[in-house]
């Protein structure tokens, strides 16, 4: 059974191996998932979870995954906005967990927007 003891062991292991992460600083990339009712019903939760997993797998320390309410485009949900510091916001639509790895590697890591998943391509 998982326990708080185990959490303590995690703290000790993680704290000794890294510096405390600098989350939410001005130099962080933000991934914002629309979590209004329509977003959740359309599948926002597994998309958010896939971003969290992918960011963890690649050990990206300056990426924050957050949520917002309604983005105002129900028929294109799940919607994800990516804010890279110093660049224009990019809106990805009709998201699925399958699309997440490509957005993380191409856009967030290598700076190349995945045009085919954006709102521009869908309209």
């Amino acid at each position, binding site marked *: 059974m998982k326990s*708080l003891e185990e959490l303590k062991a995690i703290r000790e292991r993680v704290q000794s191996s890294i510096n405390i992460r600098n989350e939410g600083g001005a130099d962080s990339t933000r991934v914002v998932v629309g979590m209004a009712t329509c977003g959740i019903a359309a599948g926002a939760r597994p998309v958010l979870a896939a971003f969290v997993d992918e960011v963890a797998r690649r050990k990206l320390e300056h990426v924050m995954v957050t949520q917002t309410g309604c983005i105002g485009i129900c028929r294109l949900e799940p919607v994800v906005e990516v804010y890279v510091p110093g660049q224009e916001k990019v809106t990805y639509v009709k998201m699925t967990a399958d699309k997440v790895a490509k957005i993380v590697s191409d856009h967030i890591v290598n700076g190349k927007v995945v045009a085919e998943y954006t709102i521009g391509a869908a309209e």
Partner: protein
Amino acid sequence: MNELSLHILDIVQNSVAARAKHIEIDVLEDKEKDRLEIRVKDDGAGMTPELLKNVTDPFVTTRTTRKVGLGIPLLKFAAESTGGSFSIESEVGKGTVIDAVFTLSHIDRAPLGNMAETMESLVVTNPEIEFTYKRQVGEKRFMLSTEEMKTVLGGLPISSPEVLMWVKDTVNENEKELNGGA
């Protein structure tokens, strides 16, 4: 919505929008009474009596981007279509309690679904909010408290990947345990 855990995620978004600092989620199952109860309590802004009276009507929302609110009417419908019940108490400045009761064995009752992913999503997107998740099946109980977790974690952020993994594993393992298998 095909999982109760998705309704929970959605109803908690209302508490987050109402700037709650503490949010409690209770999922209580009683096989003998054939009932499953979901309660979400928050200490957010609360609702005026007028809003409260109208909030189960799917044309009421205080959002500005669209004219109808769906979250509360959907949960009410889901509970009532299993022969259950639904109620809300709310007071401005105090907070809100949403209570949905389902008939456990009813064919239209959705499964609880992936509560681990719901808790992970809530913790990662709201690291500053305190969540308490209480799960009960018959006499067996499980509780996850972010306040307790933060005491143990010291300065390590609750949204660290290793901690989120622990949250998911803990919720999943306890769910199995509560349902009799390990």
